């Protein structure tokens, strides 16, 4: 069993797929995240891919402050990611709310809504710092086990079906 466990842990560290969510950032940090993919930094050499789909991703990279509107979207994306997963907050805004922390519509940093594993400071964060943050997150992700689901899969599927069938009640525009 030890061999397979080690293999799984190595694979997790060697193949982190990121999903990047802009939670109301000024795009400064977003550009730095995308800069990591360019030939200068080339994060694909560590197996890191920028994936557009939360269902395939392992690490959620969030930049910007949270407000009551996008908090729902952020929570939704976090919930769609299968375990084990990690969250990285990027930039002054993502970590604490930054200069906007006292604005009337700002809740604060990402950790007000979802649990954050790594905080990467900077305004904007440097690509090197972001890559360092991913490495730190991987250390935490490595030994993390998927949380034991107390509900059986059947109950989950039933709930999902009901949720889908009632979709018209939740629609705002008709």
């Amino acid at each position, binding site marked *: 069993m030890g061999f397979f466990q080690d293999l*799984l842990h190595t694979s997790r560290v060697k193949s982190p797929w990121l999903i990047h969510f802009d939670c109301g950032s000024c795009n400064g940090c977003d550009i730095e995240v995308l800069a990591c993919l360019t030939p200068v930094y*080339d994060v694909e050499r560590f197996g890191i891919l*920028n994936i557009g789909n939360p269902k395939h991703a392992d690490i959620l990279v969030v930049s910007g402050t949270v407000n009551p509107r996008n908090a729902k979207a952020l929570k939704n994306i976090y919930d769609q990611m299968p375990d084990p997963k990690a969250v990285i907050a990027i930039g002054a805004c993502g970590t604490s709310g930054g200069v906007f922390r006292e604005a009337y519509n700002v809740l604060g940093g990402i950790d007000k809504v979802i649990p954050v594993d790594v905080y990467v400071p900077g305004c904007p964060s440097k690509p090197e710092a972001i890559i360092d943050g991913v490495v730190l997150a991987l250390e935490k992700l490595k030994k993390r086990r998927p949380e034991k689901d107390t509900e059986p899969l059947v109950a989950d599927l039933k709930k999902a079906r009901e949720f889908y069938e009632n979709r018209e009640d939740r629609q705002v525009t008709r």
Partner: protein
Amino acid sequence: MDFKTISFVILAIILAPLAGGLLAGIDRRLTAWFQGRFGPPILQPFYDVIKLLGKEPQVVNYWQIFCVHMYLVASILCVALFAMQADLLMIFFVMTIGAVFMVVGALAVPSPYSQLGAQRELIQMLTYEPLLIIVFVGIYFVTGSFKIDAILDYERPIFLMLPLLYLVLTFALTIKLRKSPFDISASHHAHQELVRGVLTEYSGPYLAILEIAHWYDIVLILAICSLFWSTSWIGLVILLAVTYMAEIIIDNVTPRMTWKWMLTYVWAVGISLSFFNMALLYAKSF
């Protein structure tokens, strides 16, 4: 079935995913090199798949689980049939069943990305399947049989008789490999159009199974390519290497196209190329 055939089949089933994964790794490394990057390690696809296998299983409905496993079984069966030197048409039909099940799994969920990806995947199948049949018929005209053992017995490389049909086969190879310009339903290399289309709603271990089945598919299509120079090992290796290198280069220099362009271009070029090749064959025999 004798002992030799059974051992061939078992070897093929074990080695095919390893070869497919290695090929995918080399592919990613070469692509990175073309783009002036360093690129991931050669074993990267295996790390990806093992990681995905260790993730929490998350499905929208039961159909996804069923369809994923049917796709894997069909792909393994195709490779096994090839190792048994069975009928090319039989392999083709089994391959189609697998592809259809993947699309059904994607259609079984209400997500628009998945639905759109599935529709596009169906159009891709519509594009390459007639061409594959034409290629098999061309092989039949030359060797007089659809059976792989009879094709292997043919004394000359059939590439010399069917050079244009080989080009037609590479269209199917490009579509099956999910490479540009035909990667409209889902693509590799972290392209994000359609949020990975037909693969959107598959996650964790099920995505890993799809990836393994995809490796089997790649190996199968390359094995069909290898029939074209089955007389010598050197010729076979050179043919496959040149073909795959051309695929990677085309992937890097072409943009993604629309489905209309794909359908009209591939059918027009593919069918006319096959027509010329058949005409050449008849001209030679008279």
